[in-house]
């Protein structure tokens, strides 16, 4: 799934958080959007997800975005898990919404929980899981949904260094494996360089940087 954003403007009240942004993401690409707090990174994701009204155009595979869709899944910084559903039932949720049969959604959810290393925790409520585990459940839930585009909003921002590094490896692996187009937002430059096929820096004008260029600069 490819994304073409042109002239994207999002305003909260009178102040524009994003103003005339142009950006494109190719099919299967993992684009990292970096930049300081308040530069509009999260707003960009929310616009593409269809969660906030905007002016300008966001085309996903040539089709303009109007409202939310199961094709554009979002992974939030806070986990966004429903606290009354167990880990397994949280992962099953997108499949239940699609009307997938009980057996089928159970086996898909179990497979994804296993893939993120949470076998044995199926019946745990979110409050009994650590922050890192909750993020893994969220990741499993997003992947069970099988979206064509994943929007990740600083998903590891609240995790400790070790858990974050494990999660980064897992995400990079799984998203590349499934060929899912991804927009990943972070304020952490190391994370941006580690994960992105391409890094865009939002802030004082949008700067488009390729990972190789950054690596070269860091090495020098």
């Amino acid at each position: 799934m490819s994304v073409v954003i042109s002239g994207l403007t999002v305003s909260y009240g009178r102040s524009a958080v994003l103003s005339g942004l142009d950006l494109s993401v190719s099919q299967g690409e993992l684009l990292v959007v970096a930049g300081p707090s308040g530069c509009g990174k999260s707003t960009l994701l929310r616009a593409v997800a269809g969660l906030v009204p905007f002016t300008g155009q966001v085309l996903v595979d040539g089709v303009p975005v109007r409202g939310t869709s199961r094709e554009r899944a979002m992974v939030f910084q806070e986990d966004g898990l429903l606290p009354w559903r167990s880990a397994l039932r949280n992962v099953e949720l997108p499949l239940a919404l699609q009307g997938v049969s009980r057996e089928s959604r159970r086996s898909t959810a179990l497979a994804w929980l296993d893939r993120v290393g949470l076998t044995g925790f199926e019946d745990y409520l979110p409050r009994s899981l650590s922050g890192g585990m909750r993020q893994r459940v969220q990741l499993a839930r997003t992947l069970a949904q099988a979206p064509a585009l994943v929007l990740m909003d600083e998903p590891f921002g609240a995790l400790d260094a070790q858990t974050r590094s494990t999660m980064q490896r897992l995400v990079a692996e799984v998203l590349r494996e499934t060929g899912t187009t991804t927009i990943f937002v972070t304020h952490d430059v190391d994370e941006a360089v580690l994960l992105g096929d391409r890094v865009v820096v939002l802030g004082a004008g949008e700067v488009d940087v390729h990972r190789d260029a950054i690596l070269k600069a860091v090495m020098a």
Partner: protein
Amino acid sequence: MRWVLRGGSLVVGLVLWQVLTASDTEAWLRFSQLPTVVEVAERFAQQVGDAQYYHDLGSSLARIGAGFLLAAALGISLGVVVARSRVLGDLLQPSLEVVRPIPAIALVPIAILLFPTDEQGIVFITFVAAFFPILVSTRHAVRALPTIWEDAIRTMGASRSQVLFRVVLPGTLPGVFGGLSVGMGVAWICVISAEMISGQFGVGYRTWQAYTVVDYPGVIVGMITIGLLGWLTSAGVELLGRRVTRWLPREAAI
């Protein structure tokens, strides 16, 4: 040890009551007018063997049941609607806010005029009493719902009704049960008062009847019965609330 203390305080209270009333103590408060514990116990034993007692219990419980269930159904539905739809909120909220400050029991004259039977009037009073706490708690709970749950399910492609049934209703249950608990308490106050004013059966009616025929042990039996019924039904609501909100951290559970 704590249970011994708790049980002991009850026993001391009963002994004090017995001593003060049996000795016809008059120290500003006129304990001489009140029945003794033994008289009340005897009256209780007599009432428990009388079919009339159960008929009254049944009448009060049926009124509470009908009024409270109606209040729960309508209070929760309107609470959700008012909180989630700006147009319907603007349309309904002013009328609701005008009626809300009026204590339900003050509506008794209207209820007598409006409804063909006393029975329906009492159920109406009970309904109004429970309705507003449930409505207000639900409205507040819906407005206080973390937006991330709704955002998350919308990006899974959920429809409006799926958002309602999968997120809004389960997510607001702790707040809704707070309202149901308060509503049940107020419903009892109002059903008993309404029965005292215009009932033909029921625990409230029987208690007031006992007072008018100078059957003071009967009055106390009525009061204890009302207390027990109130406690049992509130405990029922509380227990159900705990069951359906088991996901809450224990200390925050209702």
